[in-house]
């Protein structure tokens, strides 16, 4: 089994430890991780898609064609990258492919045939690798710990184009977190967006923080979890960093550590926490310590 890892921009630029955790956990599961020579930004919705749809599809196709040369599907963690590439591929496969190939890719000796698809990490973990294999790869367990999940919006909606799970009651992410041995209690605002993507935070910081606070309060009051598991770089950075701002402003008086799923998985597989989970604003040592006491 092999996949082309699409890096995007935020993960390698700001959270390379997440990239390491993805590479190591996939390798431990027997997945060959390929790099895409010549990949670029997906492009993110706030960039080319906000100015020129044709240029957007050209860049989508550029990335898809470069992955196709490796002969494997793309695997991606960032929700925005997943959505941009997946929606772009949808448009290409529904009428735009030849035009984009001819107008743009052919000018630089590239061509996208439509073979390479785009899969989100949760989809691959749940539907390709499976919970059994995840369970069998573990050296440590999250038994006795409570983890709440934050599903990335972009893997759920619009479900007809990007979905692989029930958009109103998603189970894939819960199941792969449960595979680590953790309890995954539900909370009322489980399906609420983190609010981190796009221009909301930039345009109205206070309301954006209030929006996230609602979600964090629901987690704290209803579940009091050990940590939050995410599978999107924006969810990770926003929910981690904004907690520090909320505390500074006196809007919350607690802290809930945030991990990317692959960071938890890699730690449970025995990879070095100081490498795979190095960067965080909200301290995560207590959670890591608990996992390392739980040898299977």
């Amino acid at each position, binding site marked *: 089994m092999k996949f082309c890892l699409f*890096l995007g*921009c935020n993960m*390698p*630029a*700001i959270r*390379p*430890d997440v990239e*390491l955790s993805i*590479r190591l956990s996939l390798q431990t599961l027997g997945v060959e991780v390929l*790099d*895409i*020579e*010549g*990949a*670029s*930004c997906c*492009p*993110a*919705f*706030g*960039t*080319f*898609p*906000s*100015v*020129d*749809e*044709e*240029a957007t599809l*050209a*860049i989508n196709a*550029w990335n898809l064609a470069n992955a196709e040369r490796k002969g494997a599907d793309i695997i991606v963690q960032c929700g*925005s990258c997943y*959505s941009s590439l997946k929606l772009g591929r949808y448009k290409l496969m529904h009428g735009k492919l030849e035009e984009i190939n001819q*107008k*743009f890719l052919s*000018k*630089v*000796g*590239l061509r996208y045939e439509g073979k390479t698809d785009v899969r989100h990490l949760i989809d691959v973990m749940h539907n390709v690798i499976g919970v059994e294999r995840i369970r069998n790869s573990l050296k440590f367990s999250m038994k006795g710990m409570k983890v709440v999940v934050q599903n990335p*919006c*972009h893997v*759920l*909606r*619009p479900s007809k184009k990007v979905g692989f799970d029930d*958009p109103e009651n998603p189970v894939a992410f819960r199941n792969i977190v449960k595979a680590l041995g953790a309890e995954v209690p539900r909370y009322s605002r489980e399906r*609420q*967006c983190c*609010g981190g*993507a*796009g*221009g*909301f935070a930039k*345009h*109205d910081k206070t*309301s*954006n923080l*209030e*929006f996230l606070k609602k979600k964090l309060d629901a987690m704290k009051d209803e579940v009091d979890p050990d940590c939050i598991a995410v599978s999107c770089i924006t969810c990770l950075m926003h929910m981690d960093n904004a907690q520090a701002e909320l505390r500074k402003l006196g809007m919350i008086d607690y802290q809930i550590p945030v991990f990317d799923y692959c960071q938890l998985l890699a730690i449970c597989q025995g990879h070095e926490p100081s*490498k795979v989970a190095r960067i965080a604003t909200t301290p995560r040592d207590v959670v890591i310590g608990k996992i390392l006491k739980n040898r299977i």
Partner: protein
Amino acid sequence: MIEGRDPKLMEELIELGGADLVKCYQCGTCIADCPTGFAETPLSAKRLIHLVKLGLREKLLEEETPWMCVTCGGCEERCPREAEPFEIVLAIRRWQCKEDDTYVPLALSEIFARGHTQNVLNPMRKELGLPEIVTVANNREALQKFREMLKETNVYKRYSYIFREE
């Protein structure tokens, strides 16, 4: 033409990818679950579509709310007319860029210069034992090709002054 109203506005938006706005019957489902509902001035696809239908160019041009979208897809999932409000919001952004260059995001020039919105060559890679980056950010030849392709796009031709080789 009623003063201040331009019936051609709708056609312009349709041209830019907003064709679905004709489906809208102003039910407001798109704003019921929008995260920006928390903001003092929320993004309302319903309202923006109404402005387009009324042909109110100036009002639409001064709207900053289309840029607040968190791209969560909630409106797309729930629209009973399957009108893809998010695509309409993107079309409105494109129209604003066309009318007023200052709306064009500077991130475009970043992507042209190094292939990414940020510097992906983080020095921590080596210490973590990560392999070298092989994207356009670290591959001259691929970056040249990438720029060559972008030079074929209308956005490059129209706003070429924002794109720099370095």
